[in-house]
């Protein structure tokens, strides 16, 4: 059974005065299987963030269905959505969204604390995940004391800790330099390969996208094309650049 099923998803924004309806999503459908590492690319305004927000239960679609782990998001109320996010989803944002008032350890612990997991288990789990992401020495630090790359790894650790069905990453390398980006992406790849984590990565960056196994290209709220990674990462990277060139016109920023 696929982890994520998106079926004919539409989202229309109406401006505040009622007129000028603009379509952000125009009937998108795709599936993500367990253990996949899928990238979503497209020019600015293509609908990437809207799509991610809808999948993340942050925003509601106008029509269409999103089914995650067999559960239809459209049929859940606030209470259930909260429980659902707690158990099934993990988030990584461009601006980290770590809590300034908590140490790395506390930030990473938070999802498990909310799920009322036993303290022994929490500690074991935190140490384990911190090791995979290479931040075991930083656990007692506060977010403002460390670099952006380290913060983003803590945020990845928080997303991973509760073994969610699906990890949603929104431009996670957007604020990082190339070395930190490469390190973070390698971590995500490790999580994907070793822990069978299912990851959905939205990005502008062809380099970041080249770590994925499959990429969906979106243009004007619709799926433009999709490509699979056959050989090594270098070849995949070139392939991505070619598609972006075809996507055309306003996507020079992608390079």
């Amino acid at each position, binding site marked *: 059974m696929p982890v994520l099923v998106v079926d004919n998803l539409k989202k229309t924004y109406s401006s505040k005065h009622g007129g000028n309806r603009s379509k952000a999503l125009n009937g998108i459908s795709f599936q993500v299987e367990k253990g996949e590492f899928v990238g979503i690319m497209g020019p600015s305004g293509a609908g990437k963030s809207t799509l991610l*927000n809808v999948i*993340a*239960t*942050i*925003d509601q679609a106008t029509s269409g269905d999103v089914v995650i782990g067999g559960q239809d998001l459209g049929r859940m109320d*606030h*209470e259930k959505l*909260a*429980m*659902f*996010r*707690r*158990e099934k*989803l993990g*988030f990584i944002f461009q601006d980290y*969204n*770590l*809590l*300034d*008032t*908590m140490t790395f350890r*506390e930030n990473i*612990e*938070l*999802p498990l*604390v*909310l*799920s009322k997991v036993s303290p022994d288990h929490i500690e074991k789990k935190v140490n384990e995940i911190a090791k995979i992401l290479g931040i075991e020495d930083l656990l007692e630090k506060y977010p*403002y004391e460390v*670099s952006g790359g380290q913060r983003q790894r803590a945020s990845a650790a*928080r997303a991973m800790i509760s073994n969610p069905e699906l990890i949603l990453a929104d431009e996670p390398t957007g604020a990082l330099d190339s070395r930190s980006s490469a390190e973070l992406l390698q971590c995500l790849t490790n999580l994907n390969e070793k822990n069978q984590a299912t990851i959905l990565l939205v990005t502008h960056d062809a380099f970041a996208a080249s770590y994925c196994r499959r990429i969906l290209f979106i243009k004007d709220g619709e799926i433009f094309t999709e490509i699979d990674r056959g050989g090594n990462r270098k070849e995949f990277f070139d392939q991505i650049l070619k598609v972006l060139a075809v996507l055309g016109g306003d996507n020079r920023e992608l390079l």
Partner: protein
Amino acid sequence: MNFYSMAVNNIKRKSETYFTYFLSTTFAVAIFYIFCTIYYNPEFADFHTGISKIGIVFQFSAVIVLGFSSIFVFYANSLFIRSRKKEIAIFSLLGMRKREIGLLLFTETLIVGVCSAACGILLGSLFSRFFSMILVKLMLGGAPGNHMSFRLTWQPVVISFGVFLLLFVLNAFYSMRIIYKSKLIDLLSAAKEGEKAPEFSWISSGLSFAMILSAYVILLNFNGNEGAIRLIKPVILAGVLLVAGTYLLFQNVIILIFSKCKNNNTFYLKTGNFISISQLIYRIKANANMFCVIALMSAFTITLMSGVISFYISLNSSMTIYAPYSYLCRNIDASVKKQVLHAVQQDKSVQLYAVTDIDVLTTKASLEGYKVDTNSEYGKITTSVGEKFDLDIIRFSDYQKVIRDTKAKESNGNKGAIYVSTLKKGDCLFLDGNYGHDYSDRIDGKNIHVVTDSGEKDFHITGVSLFKYMGAAHARTTLVIPDEDARTDFADQGRYQVNHCFGLKLGNPLEAGALYDKLNTIVSAGNRDMSYLEYHQLLFNMYGAYIFIGIFLGILFLLAAGSIIFYKQLMEARDDEGRYEILRKIGMSKKEVEASVHRQIAAAFLLPSAVALIHSVVILITYQHMVYTIAVDSPILWYVFAVVMIYFLIYAMFYLLSVRGYLSVVWKEN
């Protein structure tokens, strides 16, 4: 880690943000508690402030403290919530249920609330004895009084704690409601959407000036002779104009001024100005409402504090208007007089300074452009301009004895005694019985037509004053005429009503309580005035309580105003974080950022206080006009100056706190 420890952690880590909130609420609780202890202290039950018992006054003040604290706590709380929308969004994303988030914030609000209530009560208990003593001192005003026994009772503790706990619980519920109502996507983007900016217009700018100026004109033209009830309408009108005008001022004029600065390139394009002005315009638009509230609140505070302080300080000198003599009798016969003097001589504890024994003659007179408008022991008397009125006549030698015996003071205005060594035949001094100088201003040098033995006779007025030589209660317009004129023109005493005044002036009028009691048994009630001590108690009991309340409310308002600005700055710092990050990246040095932040925050503090200052000076000038009964010129503006200095000192403290808080947010050392 559980909810409770998360809440405690949050408070600990945000201690700097919570500090001023904690300080202000603690202070509010402490004041409320102290007012309650005074209300519940049986010792105070006998004190009266004017017409009402002191307990009522303090009960009323406690309600004001509570009302004000509710507004402050509510405002601070909603600022807190707004600054934490992002945090709430993260909690929500991680799958925290709204109920749980609500519970977390509820716990936080409650912990801070309970702590500040407890601290406030503790602080209040520690100092309530001290403050009760100060209150008694203020209310006695130097007169000897009994020492208070003091004990802590349980009611104030229970009431303060209960009332404030209720306040915090209500606020905690309010926080929960916000969370329940909000959508996740709005929370996530909350920080990005700016506050709605008002557009300025020339019409509103003009209107705001017109409103404020007309409020000033109304205030400055208050007629002191009119009764309090007739002043209610203009006071309300001026108040509304002032509030509305100030509101429009901040909505329009200030923005306009800064926009003009922006257009002036030579000024605008200097590094420091560039950053702070563009920030300020952005800020002032968003802060116009807050600035308006702070300005009005500060104006109120400065006025209140300067008013009560100057009034209290001038009370001692104004005692002579009410009771120039320590003990004043009227129309007593020789045997009573003898008994009185005998009683005084027997009492070894008092020093008799002088005894005045004079006759005051009452006749009729008319004077062009003058009218009487008084309310004294003769009842309310109003004549029309130029009409005949009752006039008291005293001889120049008697007048000189009175001012010598009562040690009457001269004044710069025309309120004090007139000291002249001689009075020419046909000349006279005019002691106006009115309270205001509206009529007496126009009559110096004129002739007054007085009914004498031989018909009407003109006297030439060579001196005019509002001096109340026998005390304000017996004030009637009086003419001082040369002795020889009195002998020739008022020889037929049978034609006039004659009042015989017999005044005792003691060297230590406050310590002669026993003597007054004894004299009261000798002189019948109709023939004596209240003693100096009674007047003193009347004034000081009332104003002593008022100054006490005024100072406390003033400090509370000040603290609250300061901390509101502080919060606002701290919140803005969070919004500005990105902006300063950019400025830093494009090469602004730490020094330049600091200078810019200093300037920006200084404007946030100075703009409202400058407006407040101008408002309060105008109101206080009016006030000075109104306090006509004070014979000695009270240097109100000096007290205003002192109050303003203290005000700015406390403000400066909040300013520095704000700058520090702001910089720690926008300039993080990595």
